[in-house]
Each structure stands twice: as structure tokens, then as C-alpha cells.
């Protein structure tokens, strides 16, 4: 008998928490029989937005640059920031105050989206994914 850790059983059990993660399989994979028709998928395009396309953009470059200035190489990748880092951050936010214009505002918006997308992957129990929320909002508008 197979034992699957509880947090991973959601998709298989049909729980709504796993729906977002398997959405593209339900919509893009599975058996197709040409004698049958398929219902229109109009309205689902919102799911196709690619968070990663922002990686090669000026906004991302600026955001990465800021993040690197804040990074404390001594502290290790997932440890709390140490004192030197905090000092760096204060310096950093000073610099940010001076240079903050339309562009860095946009960078922060992207940063926020990026952060949210990442946090969805970490939080437990998982909040409903942003994209699925958009889809749901769309439904409710109908």
C-alpha cells in the first residue's frame, strides 16, 4: 500500500488546494476523442500568464541588483540576516529614497507579484493561488 505524505495527497484526493497545481493537466492533457466536442475554454487565458517572462526585463535587473546589494554572503542562503546585512539595508534604503522614480515603483510591483507567486509555493496550508483567484473572479463576473 502506498503511503503519501498528507500535504501531497491533496491533488490526488481532489482537494481544492491542489487544483491550481494540476489545472493545466486537466485542461491540456488527458484523452481527446475527436468524435466528441470540447467545451469552449474562452475565459481561461488568464491562466497562461507567465510570471517568468519578467526575468529578462529592466525592472527585474534593478530588483536583482537591489537584492544583491542587500545579500549577506556570510549568513547562508536561508538564515536570518545578520547585523552587517541590516546595516547594508539601511544604507540601501537611503539610496532607494533618492533614486525612487517611476521605474523602481514598477519594479516593486513586479517584485510583489514575484514574491506572492513564490509564497504560494511555501505557505501551508496553501492559499488559493493568485491566478486561480483571477479565474474565479472572472467566473463571478459572469
Amino acid at each position, binding site marked *: 500500500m502506498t503511503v503519501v505524505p498528507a500535504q501531497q495527497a491533496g491533488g490526488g484526493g481532489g482537494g481544492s488546494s491542489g487544483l491550481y497545481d494540476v489545472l493545466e*493537466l486537466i485542461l491540456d492533457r488527458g*484523452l481527446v476523442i475527436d468524435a466528441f466536442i470540447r467545451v469552449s475554454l474562452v*475565459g481561461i487565458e488568464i491562466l497562461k500568464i507567465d510570471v517568468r517572462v519578467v526575468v529578462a526585463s529592466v525592472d527585474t535587473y534593478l530588483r536583482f541588483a537591489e537584492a544583491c546589494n542587500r545579500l549577506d554572503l556570510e549568513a547562508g*542562503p536561508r538564515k536570518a540576516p545578520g547585523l552587517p546585512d541590516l546595516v547594508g539595508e539601511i544604507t540601501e534604503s537611503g539610496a532607494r529614497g533618492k533614486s525612487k522614480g517611476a521605474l523602481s515603483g514598477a519594479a516593486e510591483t513586479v517584485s510583489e507579484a514575484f514574491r506572492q507567486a513564490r509564497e504560494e509555493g511555501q505557505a501551508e496550508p496553501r492559499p488559493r493561488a493568485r491566478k486561480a483567484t483571477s479565474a474565479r473572479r472572472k467566473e463571478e463576473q459572469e
Partner: protein
Amino acid sequence: MSTYVYGIAASSHPALPKDMGGVGDPARPVRILTEGELAAIVSDAPEGLRPKRKDLLAHQTVLSEAGAGGVVLPMRFGSVAPDDAAVTEVLAERAEHYLERLRALDGRDEYNVKASHNEEAVLHRVMSESPEIRALAEANRQAGGGNYEQRLQLGETVAAAVQRQEAEDAVDLRHALEAVAEAVSAGPESTGWLANVSFLVDHGAAETFLAAVEDVRKSHPHLDVRVNGPLPPYSFVEPGPSEPAETGPRV
């Protein structure tokens, strides 16, 4: 009345779903149509069916229930036949093909694995591995964050390194897991993951597979790896699993 089709199973399937709600509002009751050795899991198709959350969930839930009791070929969401007779006709016409697929997938489940970078961790990694990036970052820091050009240059260099790391991690992940899977299928792209891959895993190998995922998490701490499964074998219903990652395009 048109007929919504969830999946195809053997008529000998020991636990075909019954008394379950399917798509539609109110949920249409799930029924079984039998034709020879095959059975179709169906319900009436509601008028104006759309890919709404509730209906997608119903589709997935019916298939999960059915899949828990025995092998099922999951249909793609939204497959509607003109009537019940059209469904049984298809079962009769293509019985051999479906029976072969059912045999091939018997005792196996799909596990979908998605990975993304933990941003801070991956930035830390690319910085610690690149003297060039460290030098640029240090110069910027000393210049109070650097001017626009300097920040852009650092960011672009970092972004390129992150993208290389994404590609490398996607290959690592796939290699580590395909060794313990029977088949591999690249998931649909463009949903914001550096890797989105489905693996066909034998029931008996599920623990081994999940242990291999844990190993990847440990060896790649900058990756967030999400596993969904066991799932109905959506990505493996048709023969011809995708080629291993290192195979180039065929001419």
C-alpha cells in the same frame, strides 16, 4: 441530451464511481456506460458548460475517486458527446486501443512535479559562485547602491546567471526523478515554473519516488519543489512518452 465524459475504464474495474456529483450546477449525477470490456464514466452535460473552478474540480474529483479503485484513462476537461450512444460507439470502435492503454497504465499513477527558485537563495547561490557578480555588487554597495547604469549591469548579469541556474536545475530535477519513474512527460510550459514535469510511477515505487524528491530538495536547497500525486495519468493516456531531457530535436 448530450453526455459529458470523465474517463474510460475496464468494465471489470472494481469500484467505478456511483452516487457522485459531477459537473454542472446542480451537479449532474455520475453514471457508467458499459460496452463490452470497457466502461465510460459519464454524466449529463449541463447547458453552457464552461471551465469554472467548480466544474474543473468536479472533473478531477470524479477521476481521482475512480482512479483510487483501479486504472482509468482520464479525458481532457470538457469532452462532450452528442449522446450516450455516441460514447458506447466510440468504446466499441476503439476497444482494442483503449484496452491496450489501460493495460499499459495499470498500477501506475501520475506525479506532477513543479519547481521554482527561492529567490533569495538562488541569488545567494549565483553570487557565491561568481567572482564577477560579487565584484559588481561590492562596487555598487560602496557607491551607495550604484548609479542606474551600474545597477542595470549588475542586475542583468545576475539575471543571466539565474536563468542558467534555472536551466541547470530543471535538468538535474528531471534526471534525478526519471531514474525512479517509468515514463516522463514535460508539462505545459508558460506557467511560471522552471520545471513542470509529470512522471508515471508504479504504485510499488511511490515511496522511492517521493524519497527521490526529498533528496532533490536537500541537494538543491534553493529550489521550491511541489509534488502533486497520485493523479490520474493525464499526461500518459496516449503512447509515446516524451524523450529524455538531453535528447536534442530530431531532424
